[in-house]
């Protein structure tokens, strides 16, 4: 069964779970930049939370389905139509042979997930089908989708009961964020004024914003670095600050080591939000100790338990 890409939008890739356990070989994780939205889209169809789905950045895509199936949308909320009829996010959508799904541009957030019953087929590589663009691996020929690409899917089936998500429980996205962060390896290199800026200032998501990460515009930070720091391990959520004083946040495709001072790390409980931070969005950081952040993780995990039983934020 085939879904054909009629228009790919700015960047659409196949994403699933993370490619874990190979960072010591320099292999980044990849996977859905917003794993909670991926889990919602899949759970609505009774798929495994990490079944392979389309991650559409900034909307603007059209997909034709050649056989009947079920799909679900989650994440960045764009006006969506099946043929000429508007369809809702966070609901199962019945697709007939020949139907065309059109996704407009989302006014907030970045990434919309299109899940399909049974998941799309992606190229498995080291335990994940997720696309890692810089090394051209996983997904669909390791690349972003183009017009005319033909994605395979299996007949509709369910692996677990389908989830219902009442409107009042559906996540909403805004254009300002409060993200919990902990100190990281070189936080002490920030002078007291810069530490205060990090805790109190409002930063803006920079123009260049992709799966590798984004810059934080705002007050310049002062790091006492001689530029000779030895390369150290970094992860999605690590915030580094080069000598130019403009910090940047690493995304889900984060490289495995970096040579700039690591001044903070976005807490595990808030990392899924990084996938929806959009150029121009405002960010405030809430400084937490590692233990406070772990408590917040458990609290959020409990909150998600009712809606996504068995799902683990990581």
């Amino acid at each position, binding site marked *: 069964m085939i879904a054909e890409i009629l228009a790919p939008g700015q960047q659409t890739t196949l994403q699933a779970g993370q490619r874990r356990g190979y960072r010591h070989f320099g292999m980044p994780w990849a996977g859905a930049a917003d794993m909670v939205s991926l889990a919602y889209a899949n759970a609505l169809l009774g798929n495994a939370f990490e079944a392979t789905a389309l991650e559409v950045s900034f909307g603007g895509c059209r997909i034709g389905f050649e056989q009947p199936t079920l799909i679900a949308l989650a994440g960045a909320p764009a006006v969506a139509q099946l043929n000429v009829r508007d369809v809702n996010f966070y609901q199962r959508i019945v697709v007939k042979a020949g139907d065309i799904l059109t996704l407009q541009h989302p006014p907030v957030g970045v990434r919309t997930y299109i899940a399909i019953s049974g998941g799309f087929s992606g190229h498995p590589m080291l335990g994940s089908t997720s696309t890692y663009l*810089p090394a051209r691996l996983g997904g669909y020929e390791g690349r972003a989708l183009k017009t005319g690409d033909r994605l395979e899917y299996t007949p509709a089936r369910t692996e677990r009961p389908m989830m219902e998500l009442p409107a009042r429980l559906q996540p909403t996205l805004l254009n300002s964020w409060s993200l919990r962060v902990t*100190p990281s390896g070189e936080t002490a290199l920030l002078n007291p004024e810069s530490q205060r800026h990090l805790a109190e200032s409002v930063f803006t998501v920079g123009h260049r914003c992709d799966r590798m990460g984004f810059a934080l515009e705002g007050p310049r930070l002062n790091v006492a670095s001689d530029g000779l720091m030895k390369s150290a*391990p970094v992860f999605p959520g690590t915030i580094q600050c080069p000598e130019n004083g403009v910090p940047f946040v690493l995304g889900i495709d984060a*490289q495995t080591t970096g040579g700039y001072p690591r001044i903070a790390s976005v807490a595990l409980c808030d990392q899924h939000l990084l996938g929806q931070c959009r150029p121009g969005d405002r960010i405030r950081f809430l400084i937490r100790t*590692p233990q406070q952040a772990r408590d917040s993780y458990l609290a959020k995990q409990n909150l998600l338990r009712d809606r996504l039983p068995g799902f683990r934020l990581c």
Partner: protein
Amino acid sequence: MSRFDVVDISDYCLEVRVESAATAQAYARAIRDLDLFDEVVPGLESVAILYHTTLFPSDRVVEIVRECLDTAPAEWHANAGERRVRIRYGGKNGPDFSKICSDLGVSPQAFISLHTARAYRVEMIGFTPGFSYLGGLSDKLNVPRLLSPRQHVPAGSIGICGVYTGIYAMGGPGGWPIIGHSADDFFDASKTPPFLIEPGMSVRFEAI
């Protein structure tokens, strides 16, 4: 008396601070061999350990790590092994080779004998999947990065930069001058581990 510090670098990662890449590699291997953690990643003077915060309280992770490292070797892991890598220098295989030889004022033959004379240690793998930093390059071969990086360097390319020579295990962007190419399979997803070159190994080049 402990030989190292253990610090939080996030709410789900600890880092062991050490003095050298050799110790970082040896410790990373010892901790990875416990098979308890999702990721154990060495840097040049540190090892990061990513743990499940719901499975292990962080103070328990610190205990496990300290216990493990008390008996771990503090130098290169003896079992990491040696690899011979066959390399074709220059021409299409090494687009920057001639220019580097003339910049350095050495003949191609002299360059090749300097580059093949030593065993290099895999000090770190990173930057792009499987890219290995091989330490111990002759200081006669010290060159800077390219002014503008290439969009795509083919898998198997071999470069030099500063005190390192390096192997691109997979294709990808790259800023190191490329001196040659090896047809060896540096990455094979069907193998365990999938990368031919592992941290801590020693590598020798053989001109063909």
